[in-house]
């Protein structure tokens, strides 16, 4: 039994819910050596910045229990080189591309959105709100609803109407629902969560931080419970807003957890470092799990864990398929 895996970010249809996480798929070309990127829902780029960035000094990574700390610092070629080389490469191959953008000021995000406006092949724009706000003593935008909403509103205002704007949230906040709601009120068409919570490890040999940058972002299965909780809370509060769930997805089971919590798409990040084929494997495993539970459409299981414990699950096989 095959499952209709199509899913939607606003009006944009994805062939299936498995996408890459921002900053975890290089420029696309590296992964393309392992599998056909056209077979996943979408590729998300690293966060593109206005100027080229050299990033943070090394060591940039440290392993933690079931997790990975990274402090890459948005190394990248800058928007000009991205538009000149990386995006056309993806567009030529018809790879659905979500472009992630990062900035230090509202103006920078807005300028980036403007640059992307005429570029062909942008399926959606994901706004990485986990960047420090230079105008507010380096406080990360994502901490705070108002700061996040300001960025989103400005990006939404300049971005073409048919390109969804996705707000990417961080768990490092007092209340994810408040930030999510502010972003949606500010015009976000979809939400994506979670970006890496801030972590740290110390090398007990050198008795110094393991990362040159001191702190870094924590990813991998260690953060999955935080991520599932965020998706769950936001879905409960804003049931109609599409959510891209991510954080520690290694298998189809993990992806299913996010779908059941309310995500309509699932991003794979750190898992790619271990298994370059992870996206296709996750997709296959997810489809098998959905099918094994008697469903023929992914859409029917999104958010299913929110039903009251006693309620019976409606198996779509009980019904006539309605033509979509």
């Amino acid at each position, binding site marked *: 039994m095959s499952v209709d895996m199509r899913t939607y970010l606003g009006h944009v249809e994805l062939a299936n819910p498995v996408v890459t996480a921002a900053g975890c798929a290089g420029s696309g070309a590296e992964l393309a050596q392992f599998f056909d990127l056209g077979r996943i829902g979408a590729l998300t780029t690293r*966060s593109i910045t206005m100027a080229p960035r050299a990033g943070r000094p090394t060591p940039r990574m440290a392993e933690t229990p079931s997790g990975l700390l990274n402090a890459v610092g948005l190394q990248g070629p800058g928007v000009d080189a991205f538009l000149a080389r990386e995006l056309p490469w993806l567009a030529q191959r018809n790879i659905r591309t979500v472009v992630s953008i990062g900035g230090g000021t509202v103006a920078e995000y807005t300028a980036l959105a403007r640059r992307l406006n005429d570029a062909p092949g942008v399926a959606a724009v994901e706004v990485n709100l986990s960047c420090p706000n230079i105008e507010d003593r380096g406080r990360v935008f994502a901490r705070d609803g108002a700061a996040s909403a300001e960025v989103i509103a400005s990006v939404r205002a300049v971005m073409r109407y048919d390109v969804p704007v996705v707000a990417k949230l961080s768990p490092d906040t007092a209340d994810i629902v408040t930030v999510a709601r502010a972003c949606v009120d500010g015009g976000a068409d979809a939400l994506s969560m979670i970006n890496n919570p801030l972590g740290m490890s110390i090398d007990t040999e050198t008795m110094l931080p393991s990362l040159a940058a001191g702190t870094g972002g924590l990813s991998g299965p260690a953060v999955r419970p935080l991520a599932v909780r965020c998706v769950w809370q936001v879905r409960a509060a804003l049931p109609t807003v599409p959510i891209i769930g991510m954080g520690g997805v290694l298998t189809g089971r993990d992806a299913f957890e996010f779908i059941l919590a309310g995500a309509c798409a699932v991003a794979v990040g750190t898992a790619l470092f271990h298994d370059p084929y992870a996206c296709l494997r996750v997709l296959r495993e997810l489809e098998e799990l959905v099918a094994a539970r008697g469903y023929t459409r992914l859409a029917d299981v999104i958010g299913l864990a929110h039903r009251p414990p006693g309620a019976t699950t409606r198996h779509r096989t009980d019904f006539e398929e309605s033509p979509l």
Partner: protein
Amino acid sequence: MLTTRQVDAYHALTVVAPGIVERFRPGHFVGVAVGGPHTSMLTRRAFSIHDVKPDYGGTVEFVFAVNGPGTAWLAGRRARDTLDLVGPLGRPFPLPRDPVNCVMVGGEYGSAMLFAVADALQRRGCRVDFVLGAASADRVFGAMRARRMGETTTLTTEDGSLGMRGRVTDVLPGVIADVRADAVYACGPMEMLRGVTDVAVEFDIPVQVAVEERMACGIGVCMTCVLPVIGDDGVTRMVRSCVEGPVFRGERVRFDDVGTIPFDALGAPGGGSRNVG
């Protein structure tokens, strides 16, 4: 997995991996999953390929020192356990067209990858000499094999327990002069590669070094393994040692600036913006 053996301070694992052997070229490395199912260790460990053999459709051997939990786990593997490898990864050593004289410089387990290079060089008619060093005798890898393969082999140990007391860079100038070396190939700790590069630059001969940086992916997508390298255009970039390396021309690597972002590197922080991602 096929066999395990211990060589002095090192462990060597031979794994059946025809897919890797097929595409192998000297200088390649593999990414090895450690800890088994449901492990808490997420990242693959990188190991240079020491040797490939045609047995069982193709086997790969790598040599390693126990360094932390991942290598400790590997050291506990037994014959017939299975191992999860990705590879071959990285850019291999470029080989000269002409039959020139090459000095192979290896430090600690870094020597392990040099024999495949030496083999390829010899098949092209190159003369090969070895300079191998380590802290102590049991940490010098491949001395016997070097003696068999190389025209000459010079060994150094810091404690003097084998060969000359000192470092490879102490004896390298002499060897280069003696054998009229045309090129140097080196693999070992960063500090050694820096010294070897300095020597080669002094003699004005090309030097190819295989570097080691902490890697989370090994396939070019995570951007954690970067170091400052000067490009053909003279611009320093933070390049990935996993896909643009691990082999670089020594004089292009800014060894003094490894672990920093040189102020003149492309995209070096000016505005002081700082990011989590």
